């Protein structure tokens, strides 16, 4: 087990280095960092001096090493657009994105698993068909369109919920939270649904098809033949066996939610990292793009590690070293 975890961590580091290399290449080769940093009336000598102080004349490996070292300490340079350290910009906006993603993920997971289990067990029931239809619509409507429709319905026509922003935000140390005020909480509702709907749909479909698959297995037939109650068969035996694929996909999906928040944040003018990244893309603010990429990769890698760890908890076949896996 320990060997496995160490191997996974090493693999994660390799992935992070690959992403860092990509981010470094962006910064170093797409456009000229010096040109982006200085004003138009800077002399050639001044530029050469800046080039030297930035270390842009060092061997490329040294430069990359420095980039990785700085990045690992949170230093991603200065934003071309806003002339402030990138890490400050991100730190200001991270809480908004993380809170939104957390609520969306929770919504997607709870509702998705519930709907999936239900429609897996009652394959031809009316509600299952309804869920299936809803899920198809959820997959077919682009998230930004769902957001717009929700705003139009609940904010413009009905006027029940706010259409933009985080509402009232309280400061807890470095963390700004919307969880502690009423306006902050109701501001979360529409964006969270918009962001989570697609993932909810995927989780629901996955759980459903896994349930259908598991219900056909011999051990479920045997569990029935042993006369176990429906509840024991469905939840004790079937649901637990669907957990391994569900955990994998859910883990990945939760990671994706953070990236998909780019769209939701744009629709709802949510002051998060995604909106920052989109502006960076539009204005070719390379340090911000690179930093966002590294950060999102880091979140994915951490989620992946957690997912791997959860496998161990769920599946005894993996727990046993060298156990015969059939």
């Amino acid at each position, binding site marked *: 087990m320990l060997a496995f975890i160490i191997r996974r961590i090493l693999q994660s580091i390799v992935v992070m280095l690959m992403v860092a290399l990509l981010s470094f290449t962006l910064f170093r080769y797409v456009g000229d960092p010096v040109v982006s940093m200085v004003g138009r009336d800077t002399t050639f000598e001044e530029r050469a001096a800046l080039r030297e102080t930035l270390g842009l004349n060092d061997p490329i490996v040294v430069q990359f090493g420095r980039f990785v070292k700085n990045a690992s300490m949170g230093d991603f340079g200065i934003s071309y657009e806003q002339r402030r350290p990138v890490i400050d910009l991100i730190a200001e906006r991270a809480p908004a994105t993380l809170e939104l993603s957390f609520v969306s993920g929770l919504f997607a997971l709870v509702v998705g698993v519930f709907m999936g289990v239900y429609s897996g067990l009652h394959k031809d029931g009316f509600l299952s068909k309804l869920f299936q239809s809803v899920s198809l619509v959820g997959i077919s409507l*682009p998230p930004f*369109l769902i957001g*717009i429709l929700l705003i*139009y319905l609940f904010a413009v026509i009905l006027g029940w919920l706010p259409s933009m922003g985080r509402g009232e935000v309280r400061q807890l140390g470095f963390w700004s939270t919307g969880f502690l005020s009423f306006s902050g909480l109701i501001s979360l509702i529409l964006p969270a649904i918009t962001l989570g709907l697609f993932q909810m749909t995927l989780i629901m479909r996955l759980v459903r098809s896994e349930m*259908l698959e598991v219900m056909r297995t011999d051990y479920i037939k045997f569990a029935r033949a042993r006369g176990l109650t429906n509840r024991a068969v469905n939840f004790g035996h079937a649901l637990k066996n669907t957990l391994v694929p569900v955990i994998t996909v859910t883990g*990945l999906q939760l990671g994706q939610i953070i990236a*998909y928040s*780019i769209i939701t944040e744009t629709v709802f003018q949510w002051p998060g990292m995604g909106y920052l990244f*989109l502006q960076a893309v539009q204005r070719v603010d390379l340090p911000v793009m690179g930093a966002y990429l590294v950060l*999102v990769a880091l979140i994915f890698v951490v989620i992946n590690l957690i997912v791997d760890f959860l496998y161990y908890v769920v599946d005894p076949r993996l727990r046993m070293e060298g156990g015969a896996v059939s």
Partner: protein
Amino acid sequence: MDIFRYIAKRYTLIIDSDIFYSFRRSPVTVVAAVITVTYILGTIFAPWIAPHNSYDLTSLSLLDAFLPPAWIEGGTTNFLLGTDDQGRGILSTIIWGSRLSLGVGFAAVIFSGILGTALGLISGSAGGRVDAFIMRVAEVQLTFPAILIALLVDGVSRGLMNVYEAEAMAIYVVIFSIGVSFWPQYARTVRASTVVEMEKSYVEAAQVAGRHPAVIMVRHVLPNVMGPVLVITTINLALAIILEATLSFLGVGIPPTEPSLGTMIRIGNDYLFSGEWWITVFPGAALAVLVLAVNLLGDWMRDAFNPKLR
């Protein structure tokens, strides 16, 4: 007359097949197929069907801007579904925009399909380090959502080109960025099937017979992986259309001078609060119906080609 007998035989084979049976048995799928075909025909014949040419800037008049649909007071039958802020007819722009959306979608899917299938074949047949490298890259990329990859590619291309080039190349950049973000799925599926096929005796026989590996790949292995590739392509077509619309909505896709469905929704979004709902709602509905139809087809194909889940 052999050819007729051949066609007749083929025809009865198709009519009798399980796949056609499951197609006929599912009215929803038939409707979805009809809708998809209608869209495709509509976009091919857009210049003749659309009442106005929305991309011809000289034909636009700001006097026509913000007209509501014909059945609402103030609307005219000249613009059945109303007009947008530039005086473009919504109906015509939807037809032209669908053409753009579908065209970009098809191009991106074909591009990623060829790229991914080729890499999958190479990976599955070469094995060893090449295989490990390609699959590792695919795996890493798969953990990133397509939208992020596409945005990144888009941002980089902006960094490499000046404004005018970027404008002119926008559509190709969009196709490329969507295509690049879809290849790993193809590569993984094709690789898995290739590895299975490579083990089979007919491939070994062809190898022993001294056929060139590329010939073996194309003649023997490729036909066997076409089923899953077709299913992925259909599902990805829907995703590609959504992705294009999303990029355009975010303002980094197709430029507003030649609006795609996503661009129209982006324009309309600014006017939703002031009551000009038709600029958003009609293109949104057109997009949703198209994607839904393609998704339904993809769903049916996946079930039909995968009897295990039937």
